[in-house]
């Protein structure tokens, strides 16, 4: 029990430290001065989330860590890239510029870039790669991202992308991991199964769903990247096996450390724990068009009936940050830190129930750990907290299998999660706009929809910030989602593995770009 208390204080410290910076690498603070990058070595990554049903087709990517780190992060490049600092920089595009105030975007393609099979990168390759996700019969997970594109054409070295409406953030979307660039064949399509890219590595060995070995390309076009000679990605799904592997030096880096025991790794010399608050968030969507959630007072009652700090302490063991129903995370550019917090207050919850004309409230909350690790515990903990406000939360346990098809968006109140998106527009358009494909709260707000369209076309940064902040406040105070916490990405590395201290919070391991950006000391 004493260790528990000890951990508690450290966690508190972590929580405080976390609030002071958007994306903070805890481990990096304590580590020695960083050396200059150097070449060589085989980086071995123990990664969670591999599965035997992964495919080289980027339209299917998302769940497989092999494809995120090995495919997106090593074999391929995108038109643009989100750096560790969160800035967007051109990658395969040399430069890009908007025309018609953001309705048309012109990407000038970098010259002298070659694919790993020797072909030279052409604008046609870019067009073909993006078109792969478009069209009526597309099953691509990236289809909603490319949906606003009405036309892609090639003018010399320039790829011209026309949108149905202006969007100032459009280039950000092209950094998405689905939208990698492959070589187009004579028929104008890309043979993805050949996994030929412009990235720093090529595949030398691959066993689907369990192991990938990559070797550095000597002729990689980036001079100051891809430092390792070889990168080996080993799928380790069992969390104890991952922790053991990094402790015994079988691997150099692991993803998704066991948050309940990672604190004890501090005692192991030569290991560094990295922690980043990304955009990942755990959510509890309610249908705002179904009783009792159609009454704003009921929604507010529920929002005041949840103790968010206790959630972060007990579900995330402190490895996260309290959220106040804001789908825009601290890692986002226009995150509004000044939103009025919903602090746990059973009396206030009771007050709002009275406003709704209710003495008490009983709701069904559907939960399964498929939503996120600890979702069922979160639901039970919420039931306990809400009972003090006279709200009876009836937790219904659902099977993990088929959760996303049969429960989520089918029942009025359930557990869910969002990976989050690097831009405000992207997150709002996909989940919270009234016409959003995954509007899991059925929330419709005219003002919000109007702001969404206006902010897209707004090129003035201050005005955009104001718009996005108003939208965050609308979702939090009027919307149908409870977002109790942002979850950290917690990874562990050997102290021989170095980075420049700016670790991206878009995805795990520097936005999956570890092979491109990190190096051995």
């Amino acid at each position: 029990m004493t260790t528990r208390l000890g951990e508690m204080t450290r966690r508190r410290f972590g929580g405080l430290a976390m609030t002071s910076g958007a994306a903070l690498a805890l481990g990096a603070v304590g580590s020695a001065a960083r050396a200059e990058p150097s070449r060589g070595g085989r980086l071995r990554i123990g990664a969670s989330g591999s599965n035997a049903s992964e495919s080289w087709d980027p339209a299917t990517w998302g769940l497989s860590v092999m494809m995120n780190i090995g495919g997106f992060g090593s074999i391929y490049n995108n038109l643009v890239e989100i750096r560790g600092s969160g800035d967007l920089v051109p990658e395969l595009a040399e430069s890009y510029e908007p025309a018609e105030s953001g309705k048309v975007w012109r990407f000038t393609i970098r010259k002298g870039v070659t694919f790993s099979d020797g072909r030279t990168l052409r604008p046609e390759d870019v067009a073909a790669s993006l078109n792969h996700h478009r069209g009526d019969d597309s099953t691509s997970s990236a289809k909603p991202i490319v949906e606003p594109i009405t036309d892609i054409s090639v003018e010399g070295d320039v790829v011209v992308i026309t949108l149905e409406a202006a969007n100032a953030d459009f280039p950000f979307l092209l950094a998405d991991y689905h939208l990698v660039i492959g070589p187009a064949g004579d028929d104008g399509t890309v043979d993805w199964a050949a996994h030929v890219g412009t990235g720093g590595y090529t595949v030398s060995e691959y066993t689907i769903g369990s192991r990938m070995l990559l070797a550095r390309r000597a002729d990689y076009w980036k001079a100051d990247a891809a430092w390792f000679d070889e990168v080996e990605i080993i799928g380790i799904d069992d969390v104890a096996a991952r922790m053991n592997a990094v402790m015994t030096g079988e691997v150099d880096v692991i993803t998704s450390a066991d948050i309940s025991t990672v604190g004890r790794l501090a005692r192991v010399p030569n290991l560094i724990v990295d922690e980043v608050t990304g955009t990942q968030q755990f959510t509890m969507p309610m249908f705002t068009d179904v009783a009792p959630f159609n009454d704003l007072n009921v929604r507010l009652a529920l929002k005041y009936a949840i103790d968010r700090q206790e959630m972060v302490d007990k579900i995330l063991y402190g490895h996260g940050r309290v959220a106040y129903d804001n789908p825009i995370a601290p890692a986002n550019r226009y995150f509004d830190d000044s939103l009025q917090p919903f602090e746990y207050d059973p009396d206030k919850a009771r007050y709002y129930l009275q406003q709704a004309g209710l003495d008490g409230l009983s709701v069904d909350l559907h939960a399964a750990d498929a939503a996120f690790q600890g979702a069922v515990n979160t639901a039970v903990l919420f039931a306990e907290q809400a009972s003090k406000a006279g709200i009876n939360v009836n937790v219904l346990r659902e099977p993990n299998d088929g959760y996303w098809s049969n429960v989520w968006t089918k029942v009025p109140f359930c557990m869910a999660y969002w990976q989050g998106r690097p831009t405000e527009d992207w997150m709002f358009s996909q989940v919270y706009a009234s016409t959003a494909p995954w509007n899991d709260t059925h929330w419709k707000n005219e003002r919000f929809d109007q702001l969404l369209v206006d902010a897209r076309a707004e090129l003035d940064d201050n005005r955009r910030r104001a718009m996005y902040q108003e939208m965050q406040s609308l979702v939090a105070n009027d919307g149908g989602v409870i977002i109790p916490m942002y979850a950290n990405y917690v990874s562990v590395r050997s102290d021989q593995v170095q980075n420049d201290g700016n670790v991206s919070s878009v995805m795990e391991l520097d936005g999956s770009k570890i092979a491109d950006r990190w190096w051995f000391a």
Partner: protein
Amino acid sequence: MRDIVQLVIRRLLLGLLTVLAVSLVIFGAVSMLPGDAAQEILGQAATPESLAALRLQLGLDQPAWLRYLHWLGGMVQGDFGTSIANGQQVSSLIGERLANTLFLAGLAAIIAVPVALVLGILAALYRNTLFDRAISALTLTAISFPEFFVAYILILFLSVNLGIFPSISNISPGTEFWERVYRSLLPAAALSLAVIAHIMRMTRAALVNLLGLPYIEMARLKGATPRRAVVVHALPNAVAPIVTVVALNLAYLITGVVIVETVFVYPGIGKLLVDSVSKRDLPVVQAVCLVTSLAYILLNLLADVVAIISDPRLMHPR
């Protein structure tokens, strides 16, 4: 000899029927699970349009019985089909992993069977002594713990504390033989501990049974040492039950390795099966289950043949 050939043929035909029944049961069971392959592949990212498009691509719009017949038709021609989830040939998906799993099972068998037999003979020889009880207690303790627990204990002591063995079995096609053996030793040990008790107890029981018979008494009266009585006189007659239990345990080594493979990150067939079931990837599930049920059928057949050769009376059950 002709009788045995006839028996083998009859049993093989029956085995085929069993396999067919197994494939039907598996197809039915997977079909009854909530969600289909399209939903599992798209997950949270599914929209009604993309679901419909993917179902069409995967041929999931056809009725279940038609898909089963299709699969069966391919199967008869030796075509395992392609994976629904990733479009790869099922045979290429399974090939290397099956080889790895067989290697691990073989290694475990090479450790476990001799150890278990020797322990069983010793326990029969020194039955009801402290030694006998200690062996029984130890092996039964090992089998009573769940395999993952035994695996973690092995990792804690031999890998984390002492650093003798690697904590994960990182094996690739290029790994050379002895390196492969070394990296597979811990999982093989964990598996061995799970089967030794079974084989050892059966060996002991079979021998002890025989030791009470008059012909053993006769041998002892002729002046045979206890050791000679057990090894030369009793053991040949105990082959049948021992071989049966060994075969069952070998089959278990092939089919029951999922947990041990997960803990040691061993690239075998277990993880493939789990992934395929969760993605409703029927062709792969079918193929893996087919291989494992074949392993059971063939090993059992082998055990029966060996038993009959060792004791022809079994050919003519009363």
